[in-house]
């Protein structure tokens, strides 16, 4: 344990402040080092005090986080407000429910890129042998309408939605040879894909979640082991202005 050095003669106010802060950080009572679990919660409460600064990754925690002695001291010096909701849930509040538990994901391929999306956001997949009916005046990523059973599905060019118009619009775009369509839960939209690969279980702590999604809100995270992007379909499809 390091002890605070005796301060030199204090002349300037800033210097005095620096010395004071340094003293706070250095003087750790021996007894506090034994504390392990409770201060860990205090650290999470600290996140609640500053809700604007969300972490890059969602703290999906299966065990108590490790806390350094310095962090413990810092928490002791901070006047914490007792949160009504645990900090962990607070941080996850902008995430969909399915992201908080192990979920089944459908892995599919779009333009050589493997993507995953939770099964809960889909109703079914279909194989089609006919082209959707093109509606004039719509964006190029809206491939048209398709009557399938009792649903009228708006078929979307997943390539363009994900890669943007520049990369998604290939010269053969008019004749995009898609065969499979992922139908959304509300059966209003279909996302075309090249191939459906598999269904697998994904654990939340195996995902690097994107909690700040001002840009590309549909890209919700990445499966760490496979480096597969997880797509939040609800954010990828447009909101119908009518119907």
């Amino acid at each position, binding site marked *: 344990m390091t002890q605070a050095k005796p301060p030199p003669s204090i002349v300037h106010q800033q210097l005095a402040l620096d010395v004071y802060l340094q003293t706070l950080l250095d003087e750790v009572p021996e007894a506090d080092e034994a504390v392990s679990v409770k201060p860990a919660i205090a650290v999470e409460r600290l996140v609640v005090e500053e809700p604007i600064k969300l972490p890059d990754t969602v703290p999906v925690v299966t065990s108590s986080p490790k806390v350094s002695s310095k962090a413990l001291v810092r928490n002791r010096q901070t006047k914490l407000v007792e949160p009504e909701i645990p900090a962990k849930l607070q941080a996850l509040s902008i995430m969909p429910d399915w992201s908080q538990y192990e979920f089944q994901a459908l892995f599919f391929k779009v333009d050589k890129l493997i993507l995953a999306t939770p099964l809960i956001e889909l109703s079914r997949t279909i194989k089609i042998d006919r082209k959707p009916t093109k*509606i004039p005046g*719509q*964006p190029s990523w*809206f491939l048209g*309408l398709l009557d399938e059973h009792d649903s*009228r599905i*708006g078929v979307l060019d997943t390539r363009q939605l994900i890669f943007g118009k520049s990369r998604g619009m290939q010269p053969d775009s008019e004749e995009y040879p898609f065969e499979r369509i992922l139908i959304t839960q509300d059966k209003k939209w279909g996302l075309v894909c090249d191939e459906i690969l598999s269904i697998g279980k994904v654990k939340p702590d195996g995902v690097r979640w994107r909690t700040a999604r001002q840009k590309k809100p549909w890209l919700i995270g990445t499966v760490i082991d496979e480096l597969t992007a997880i797509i939040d379909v609800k954010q990828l499809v*447009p909101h*119908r202005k*009518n119907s």
Partner: protein
Amino acid sequence: MSEDKKQGDPIMQWVTFCLGDEKYGINVMQVQEVLRITEIAPVPGAPSYVLGIINLRGNVVTVIDTRNRFGLPSKDTDDASRVVIIETDRHIIGILVDSVAEVVEMRASEIETAPNVGNEESSKYIQGVTSRDNHLLILVDLNKFLSDDEKAELDMF
């Protein structure tokens, strides 16, 4: 269906025509006649969606390139091509289509609104869609096919 319901759900007739793989419908009440393709004289400085003008029994009628208007690739005319003469807001115009198919009847309740994911302006003339013989029929509102400014411009030709 009861008589009351029938009155609230009128039968409408639609002239259907084809452009590429899709079939479209326009209100039969606005169709004056259907012409085989004749010589269309280009108009210098006209917008891209204007093919030119024709002489229809002494009246000059502007012909619209419907493929261009609908964002479809252009196609050479052939024996099946037709110019459908329509009336919209007291303007007589012709629209060039790949072929004219038939006249179909349908109730207003059969028409569903098409999803609009683009800007309102680009697809304002799409009245709705309906299923017909395992195909979707796209219904076009001819009154919104051209804007007021565009109609005024056509009068200058």
